[in-house]
């Protein structure tokens, strides 16, 4: 059933994504693109780009939108619930236990051990996005956009929303292929 699938697709990133919302992006991508094939990598990247251009937590924006695409309003609700509820309920229910262990080296190690795996997933996603860029816009435009957005985002610290709007304008003007 579709709602069960939506639940699983966002429940797993919710309980495995150590390191906050951004850490769950590649896990969401794995479920949505690789496993359930609801979207292509290009579509996923578009959702991620628009998500990054809007404020607020990223994992929940992805869950709400992808859930909506796949299963309507109820799908959006299921996606959001699966993303938020498990760790929140655990936090409220286990507050005493967690409080006792919050400074324990074991707990710190959890995030530290999982982080390299997330790094690998993020790396794989980067390569897929890169391949999609070259396929969609050609090598020359891809290089211009990669270098341009790198300098804008990382060197000159331009707001991501502005960079995404600039790239949309560039894409519509030069890469519409019409």
């Amino acid at each position, binding site marked *: 059933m579709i709602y069960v699938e939506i639940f699983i697709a966002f429940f797993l990133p919710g309980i495995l994504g150590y390191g906050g919302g951004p850490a769950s992006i590649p896990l969401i991508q794995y479920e949505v693109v690789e496993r359930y094939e609801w979207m292509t990598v290009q579509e996923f990247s578009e959702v991620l780009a628009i998500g990054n251009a809007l404020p607020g937590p990223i*994992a929940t924006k992805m869950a*709400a*939108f992808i859930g909506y695409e796949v299963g309507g309003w109820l799908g959006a609700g299921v996606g959001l619930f699966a993303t938020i509820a498990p760790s929140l309920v655990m936090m409220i229910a286990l507050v005493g236990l967690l409080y006792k262990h919050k400074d324990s080296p074991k707990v710190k190690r959890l995030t*530290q051990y999982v982080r390299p795996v997330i790094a690998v*997933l993020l790396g794989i996603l980067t390569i897929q996005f890169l391949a999609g860029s070259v396929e969609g816009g050609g090598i020359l435009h891809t290089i211009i956009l990669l270098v341009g957005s790198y300098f804008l985002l990382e060197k000159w610290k331009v707001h991501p929303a502005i960079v995404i709007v600039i790239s949309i304008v560039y894409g*519509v003007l030069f890469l519409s292929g019409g």
Partner: protein
Amino acid sequence: MLQMKIFLAFFRVGILGYGGGPASIPLVYKEVVDHYKWLSEDEFGDILALGNTLPGPIVTKLAGYIGFSVGGVIGAINGVIAIVMPTALMMIAFFAALANFQDAPWVTGLTNGVLPVVTVMMAVLTKNFVTKSHSDLGWKFAGLLLLIGIVIIGVFDFHPAILIVILIIAALIKRDPLEKKIKGREGGKEE
């Protein structure tokens, strides 16, 4: 009214917080410590540390937990809805509007334009995660975990959950020299 305040506090965080959940933490602090004074600075630090022991998005855990401690179960639901809904609806509305032009060539242009930008964002995020892994675990161990990850997920295409669960178990069962010492001392006291 209390529930109204909870809603406003997290609504503002949701619509002003750029850069994802972790970047919004200072905004939550401003609302609940500085503005509404629901928590002291130390309590906020404790709750943040608690949230970080668990996986998943951090800012919704903060909104839910703080909402719960201030206004009960209704407060928790209220806080989460306030932080999540506005931008979730914006996303859905944006793509619903875009769907009307699905076949227009400029929509393809839009996708082609944003893809390199998210590539850069993902590359930077990857670099940050690798750097942090190295500073926490050292080159050898972090390198080993990265290599295992690349082989198992990248080459053999296993579900990432398998590897993550194994690492979670490894992190929990590994004994610490310090812990042994403390236990030893406690044991000594009992005798």
